[in-house]
């Protein structure tokens, strides 16, 4: 109970900080940076529900990011949807897509799962590229995404858009936090650690994996919607494998074992990206070197390093408790 209230408190604080940035009138560049970080942060955070908590390494997670962005953009362009309706529609459509893709993929293990998700992503990517009349092909959704007012909110205004995205982002974070601290979240950990044993404890492994896959896809879709709103369009590279790869990098940089790890990784990657772009056109080279340092040097993400320290200390305390109890019994 207390844990839940504490998490909500942190969420409230996070939202307050995000809104404060808007109120104090920070430079638009900072606001833009935060908007990008929130959209990609949701992609990385949702992917970590699969990788970090369930042990399902998906290489195709960006397909749901793209499906959210395209479904939202196309719905808005059709003129039949209000913003909230298109929002819900894009999530629902992604859920259906994830249900179909997941039902086929989650039965497979490790490398087979990874490659099949990658294959589905490339299928979607090529569909977007090929179906020019509907998706605009490699030009992306052209003509911008109309954003009619709803409930007095005008998303064509950058500030209001920023506030809207911040709230959507924090709500998604709270939902994910709720999941990982619930019995369902611990069932995911059972599957990650030892799925065979989990089955002998009565866990329906395939079903739980599928539910997690769909939830995670829905949150990636929200990330895609935020990005579509922000750039007022949707582009095929949202569904390209490099977008999935980037979100895996974010998890590697920030850490997969701590809840906020992927978000920290997102911020690191975006900062690196934005800083290096100023000085050099070889951004990828710099990013590659940084990632190599993390993978070969640290072997884990930033927050995981800290978590390991804490864990080691707590384990030592637990050992001394055990030894004291055993000594008391023996004497």
């Amino acid at each position: 109970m207390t844990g839940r209230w504490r998490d909500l408190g942190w969420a409230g604080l996070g939202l307050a900080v995000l809104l404060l940035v808007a109120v104090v009138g920070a430079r638009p560049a900072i606001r833009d940076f935060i908007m990008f970080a929130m959209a990609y942060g949701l992609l990385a955070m949702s992917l970590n529900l699969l990788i970090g908590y369930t042990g399902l390494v998906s290489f195709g997670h960006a397909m749901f990011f793209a499906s959210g962005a395209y479904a939202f953009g196309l719905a808005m362009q059709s003129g039949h949807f209000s913003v909230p309706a298109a929002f819900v529609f894009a999530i629902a459509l992604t859920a259906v897509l994830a249900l179909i893709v997941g039902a086929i993929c989650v039965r497979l293990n490790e490398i087979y799962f990874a490659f099949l998700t990658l294959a589905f992503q490339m299928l979607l990517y090529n569909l977007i590229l090929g179906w020019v009349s509907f998706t605009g092909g490699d030009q992306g959704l052209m003509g911008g995404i109309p954003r009619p007012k709803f409930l007095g909110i005008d998303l064509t205004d950058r500030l209001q858009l920023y506030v809207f995205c911040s709230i959507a982002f924090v709500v998604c974070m709270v939902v994910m936090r709720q999941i990982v601290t619930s019995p369902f979240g611990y069932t995911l950990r059972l599957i990650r650690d030892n799925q065979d044993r989990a089955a002998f404890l009565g866990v329906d492994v395939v079903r739980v994996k599928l539910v997690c896959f769909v939830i995670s896809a829905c949150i990636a879709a929200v990330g895609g919607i935020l990005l579509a709103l922000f750039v007022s369009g949707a582009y095929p590279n949202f569904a390209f494998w490099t977008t999935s790869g980037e979100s895996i990098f974010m998890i590697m940089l920030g850490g997969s074992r701590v809840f906020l790890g992927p978000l920290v990784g997102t911020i690191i990657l975006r900062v690196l990206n934005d800083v290096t772009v100023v000085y050099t056109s070889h951004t990828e080279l710099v990013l590659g070197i940084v990632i190599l340092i993390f993978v070969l040097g640290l072997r884990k993400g930033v927050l995981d390093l800290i978590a390991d320290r804490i864990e080691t200390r707590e384990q030592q305390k637990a050992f001394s408790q055990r030894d004291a109890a055993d000594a008391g019994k023996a004497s």
Partner: protein
Amino acid sequence: MTAPDALLKIEGLSKSFGGVAAMRDVSLAFPARSLSAVIGPNGAGKTTFFNLISGRFKADAGRVLLDGTDIAGASRQEIVRRGIGRAFQVASLFPTLTVAQALAASGHARQRSETRKLSQFPSPSATDAAREVMAQLNLTRVADVLSRNLSHGDQKLLDIGLALMLQPRVLLLDEPTAGMGPEERWQMIETVQLLWRERDLTLIFIEHDMDIVFKVAQTVRVLSYGAVLAEGTPDEIRRNPAVIEAYLGKSAQGAVA
């Protein structure tokens, strides 16, 4: 032997792997609240027997009746729900979870209520059940130790604890004393007896140590080459010439008699 009130009744169970018969027409009955040992030489099919009951393998033929319901061919989840729990020869744990977390998570695992699945972990009822199990198994002292950091003996105990969290009626223990020293073995077997008594379990265990088997078990089933060689009380088994020859070896005749 086949009492009508047997809680677990095996009828004509057979299984082969690629032409090799691992289980041949095995029929056994385990009365409610009995404590039975399954023995047999290596490769006799003891673990296969457990695997068939607990749903890892599907039997080629035969029935597994739990309280009159055939569970042969049911999924592992279904079998757990009906009340059969098992522990493994090599402790099968969740390395990154602490003892308390793993037990509570196990208590939640078969929960079907969707709303409770999103409450805060661990629920008060799961915490209480985990505490009780830890107290019974002397694991309270390692409640916060990660499963991967446990000593071998504590790992075996946790493995049993995970199964106990399912509130099973039938508990299958595959060599609870495997890999333990003499003193540790007797401690473990005392714990097993305690569980059996306090939890009203129908307990079946596989064991290699004949001293333990003859001293603890109410009844003993001997498997050999996938078939039932003998069954009876420890005294009957001890005197059974077929068992002595096939399992204990002729030279052991003097030793056990």
